C-alpha cells in the first residue's frame, strides 16, 4: 500500500469502500474545483451516509416507475439479439446489417463474475480490433474498468458497437422520449457525460491492447423512444467536451496526494460503529442509526465529523444540489457567501465573496481593497439607482 493509499484508508476509516459507477464519475464533472469532494471521492467515502450522519440528509432514490420503464425499454431495444437496434444503426449510421454479429457477455441467469466478464470483454474487443474494418460485433453487457484516483471502477455500458465505419461506438439506451426531434436538454447532457465515461474506459482498454484513442469514436449513439409511440430512435451525440472535462478531473484525482498533503494528518471521516453498519435499506432521507441496534456501541460524535468536513475546502455552488450528496451541508456552510446565490450572481456582484461585503461596499461603509475598487464603484452606482428608482415609484 502506498503512502497515499494508506492516508486515504485512514481518511475513510472503518467504513467499506464506496465503489464508483458511471453516474458518480459523471457527477465529478459538475464541480471539479471542490477539494472536499475530491478527497471524499478519492477515499471512497459514502457521501450519502455522511450527509445523513451530520444531519443534512438529501432526498435520494429513483421512482420505481422510472426504473421499470427504463428496464422495459432496454429489453425492448435488445430483444432478439438487438435485431431492431441493428436495423436502426443501419439506417442511422449506414452499417450493412447482415454483417453484424451479437455477443452477450452476461446472459441472464449465468451470474458471470465481474472479473470473468471483464476478461471476456477484453478478449472479444481484442479479436474485433484485430479483425480489421469490415464486419461488426455488438457486445451486450460488456464490463469495462476505469482507474479513478488509483482504484479500479467497474463500468457497464449498455452496449458497445464495434467497427461501425471502422470505429468502436458506445451505445447508450435511455428511456426519456424524443418528441418531434426535441428532448429534455438536461437529460441528453447527463446521458452524454455518462457515455463519455464509457468512451474513456474503452479507450483505456484498447490502449492496453496497443490501439490509439482514435479507435473509439468521440460520438456516441443515443437510443431513445420517439414521440409517444414507444419506438426507438437513434442519434449521434458528440461527447468531446465531456471527455475533456472528465479527463481533467480524473487526472486531478490521480494527483490527490498533493491535496491530502495539505490536510491535517489525523483527518478522518470515520463514523465509528455507525459507519461500519451496512446501508439502512434504500429509504432515502432517513437518518442512519446513531447507535447500532444490537450492540449499542455509540457512533463518533457528530461535531467531530462536522469538524473534519470543515477541515476540507468546499466550493459550493447551486449546481451541487443536483450533483453531490453533501449539497445541503455545504449550502448551509456557504450561507452569506455570494457564490451560494449562483456563479453569475457572484460575478455580477464584482466577485466580492461575501454578502455583507457586497452590501457594505454598496453602502459605501467599507473601504474597498485596491482590487475591489472597480467592483465597489459598480455596487455603489447600483445601490444609488436602486434606491432612487424605488423612491421615485412611491
Amino acid at each position, binding site marked *: 500500500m502506498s503512502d497515499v493509499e494508506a492516508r486515504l484508508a485512514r481518511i475513510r476509516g472503518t467504513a467499506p469502500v464506496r465503489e464508483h459507477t458511471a453516474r458518480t464519475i459523471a457527477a465529478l464533472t459538475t464541480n471539479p474545483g471542490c477539494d472536499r469532494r475530491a478527497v471524499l471521492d478519492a477515499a471512497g467515502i459514502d457521501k450519502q451516509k455522511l450527509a445523513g450522519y451530520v444531519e443534512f440528509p438529501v*432526498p435520494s*432514490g*429513483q*421512482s*420505481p*416507475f*422510472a*426504473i*421499470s*420503464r*427504463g428496464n*422495459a425499454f432496454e429489453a425492448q431495444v435488445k430483444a432478439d439479439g438487438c435485431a431492431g437496434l441493428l436495423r436502426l444503426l443501419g439506417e442511422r449510421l449506414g452499417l450493412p446489417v447482415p454483417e453484424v454479429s451479437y455477443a452477450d457477455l452476461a446472459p441472464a441467469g449465468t451470474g458471470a463474475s465481474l472479473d470473468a466478464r471483464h476478461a471476456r470483454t477484453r478478449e472479444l474487443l481484442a479479436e474485433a480490433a484485430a479483425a480489421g474494418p469490415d464486419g461488426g460485433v455488438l457486445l451486450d453487457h460488456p464490463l469495462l474498468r476505469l482507474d479513478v484516483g488509483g482504484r479500479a471502477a467497474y463500468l457497464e455500458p449498455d452496449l458497445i458497437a464495434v467497427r461501425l465505419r471502422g470505429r468502436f461506438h458506445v451505445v447508450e439506451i435511455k*428511456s*426519456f*422520449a424524443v*418528441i*418531434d*426531434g426535441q428532448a429534455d436538454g438536461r437529460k441528453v447532457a447527463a446521458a452524454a457525460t455518462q457515455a463519455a465515461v464509457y468512451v474513456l474506459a474503452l479507450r483505456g482498454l484498447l490502449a492496453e491492447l496497443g490501439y490509439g484513442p482514435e479507435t473509439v469514436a468521440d460520438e456516441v449513439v443515443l437510443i431513445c*423512444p420517439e*414521440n*409517444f*409511440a*414507444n*419506438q426507438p430512435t437513434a442519434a449521434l451525440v458528440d461527447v468531446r467536451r465531456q471527455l475533456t472535462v472528465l479527463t481533467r478531473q480524473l487526472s486531478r484525482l490521480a494527483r490527490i496526494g498533493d491535496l491530502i498533503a495539505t490536510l491535517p494528518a489525523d483527518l478522518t471521516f470515520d463514523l465509528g460503529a455507525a459507519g461500519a453498519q451496512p446501508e439502512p435499506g434504500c*429509504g*432515502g*432521507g432517513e437518518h442512519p442509526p446513531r447507535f447500532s441496534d444490537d450492540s449499542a456501541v455509540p457512533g463518533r460524535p457528530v461535531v467531530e465529523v462536522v469538524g473534519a468536513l470543515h477541515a476540507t475546502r468546499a466550493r459550493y455552488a*447551486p*449546481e451541487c*444540489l*443536483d450533483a453531490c450528496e453533501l449539497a445541503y451541508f455545504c449550502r448551509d456552510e456557504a*450561507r*452569506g457567501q*455570494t457564490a*451560494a*446565490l*449562483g456563479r*453569475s*450572481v457572484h460575478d*455580477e*456582484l*464584482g466577485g466580492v465573496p461575501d*454578502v*455583507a461585503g*457586497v*452590501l457594505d461596499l*454598496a453602502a459605501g461603509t467599507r473601504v474597498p481593497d485596491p482590487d475591489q475598487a472597480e467592483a465597489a464603484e*459598480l*455596487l455603489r*452606482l*447600483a*445601490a*444609488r*439607482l*436602486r434606491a*432612487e*428608482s*424605488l423612491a*421615485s*415609484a412611491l
Partner: protein
Amino acid sequence: MSTLTSLARAEAVRAGRAQPIATVRHVHVHDRPLVLVPLTLAGEANAPLAAMVGDDPDKPRLLVVAQPRNRDQRFAFATALAGVIVSYADGFTARVEAVAGDRARDIRVRFADAPQIVVPNPGGVDFARLFGRSTRFRRSYGDYAVDPAVPMLGRWLTFFAERAEYPGSCLLLAATEALALHWATGQSLVEDQNLAALLGWIDPPVGLTGAQAAVLAEDAGTWPPAGPTTDPTFDSTVLAPLIQAGDVPGLEKALTAQLEPTWGLVWRAVDRLRALPAGPRVAGRWDADKEAYTAHVQHLRDGGPPQPRRDSATAAAQRLNRLERAQASYAAQRAFDDPLVLAEYRLAGEAFVGTVTAAEPERVEGAGRSRKLRPHIVVSTADPVRLAPGTALVAPTRSGQKATLIAITGDGVLLELSGGMGRAATPAPGTVPEVGERICYSSLTDGYQPVADFPRREDTPWTHGGPPAGYDPAPVGDAADAAATDTVAADAAEEWS
C-alpha cells in the same frame, strides 16, 4: 440577471425576505384565471397521473388516472380535462369590442376578454405543450377513435403553450416565473424553481426568515413537488402499492394530498401578483393576447387544421423574427413602465436620467424650403452614459420626438431634437424640454419595426426542407385529418407502456 437584481438578492439575504425588483406588475392577472396543477407518471413520456384544475380556489376539480399506462383511462382523463379547459377557454366569446384596423377608418372586432391559465412552473407549460402534442392529432372515428373533445383539448393546449413562448403574453403563466419577474430572493435561481421555497421568501410565515421557510419548503413530506414530476419516495411508498392494488379511493386521497398544497400556492401567487399595481402597458399586451385568442377561435370555427408538428423552415424563421421583435419591445415596455427596470439600462449606460441645464429651442438648420427646426438641449446626469454619438434616443415621456446624441461633454449630454414640435416656425409651447426639467433618455424603443422579408411558404428553398409537404394550408374539408395522417398512424397505435 444583472448587477441590480444580484444586489437585490444580496439585500434579500440580509433582510431575510425577498426584495422587489419591480415597482409595478408586468403581467396581466385575470379576474377569473384557471389554475391547472398537472402530475405525470415518472419515466413515461408525459403520461398524465392526475390534475387539480378549476377557476375557483375553493372548488378544485380532481382528475386521476388510476392506471396511468392504460390507454383508455388516459383518454378518459383527456376527455375530462377537456370538459374543464375547453369550456373555460371557449367561455370568453360572448362579448366583442371594436378596434381600429390597420388603415384609417377600418374597424375590426375582437373578443373583449380572453382566458388565462396559471400553472405552478415551467414544467406545467411543458406538460401543456406535450399533452397538446399527444392529443391534437387524434381522430374521433375509425381505429383508435377518441372522444371529439380530445383533439379539441390538444389544439387549445397547443395554442396556450405556443403563446407562452411569446414575450409578454399572459394567456398561460407559470407562477414561479411570474413571481421571479417581480421579486429577488436570497437564494439561487435553481432554488427559485421550487414554488413553495420561492413563496417562502416572498411571504415568510410569521417568525421565520425566508431562508428558514425555504428550507422547510424543500421537505417533500410537507410540500410535495409542484409537479409535473412526483416525489420518488411518494412513488415507491404510496403510489406504487395503490396502483398495484387498483385502489381508486386510496389513490384519490393520496393524490389530493400531493396536489392540494400546490393548488393553494398557485392561488397565493395569483393573489400576491394581483395586489401589485399594473404597469401602464400591461393592458396593451393583454389586447395582443385577445387578438391571438380571437384568431384562434376564428381558425377553429373555420374548420382550420391543427397546428403542424413542426413549423416549416419559413414559418420557423418568421416565428423567430416575431419573437425577437416581441422580446425587444417587451423589454422596452417594461423599462418605460417601471423605474426599477429602467435602472438596469441606466446601470448599463444605455439610458440616463438627468436635468436639462441648457436649451436652444429655436435653433434651426438650413434655410428657405429646407429650413428645419433642430433644437439642442444639454442634459446633465450622474449616470454612466455609454452611448455613441449619432445614436437615436427617445424619452418615454416624449415618444413622438427623436433625440440624436451629438456629444458627451463635461457639462452633460448634448442632444439634437427633431419631430413632435408642431408645424410652426418655432416649437409649440412645451414641446422642447425646458431648463430645470428632469428627463430620461434611452436607446430603447417599443415602436414599430419592419417585418423581415421571408419567402412565401411555397417558395421555401430546398436547402431549408423545400415546401412543406402533406400540409394544406387551406381549410378544406378534412384537411386537419389529411395533415395528421402520418402522425395518427404512428401515434394512434401507441401503447404507452
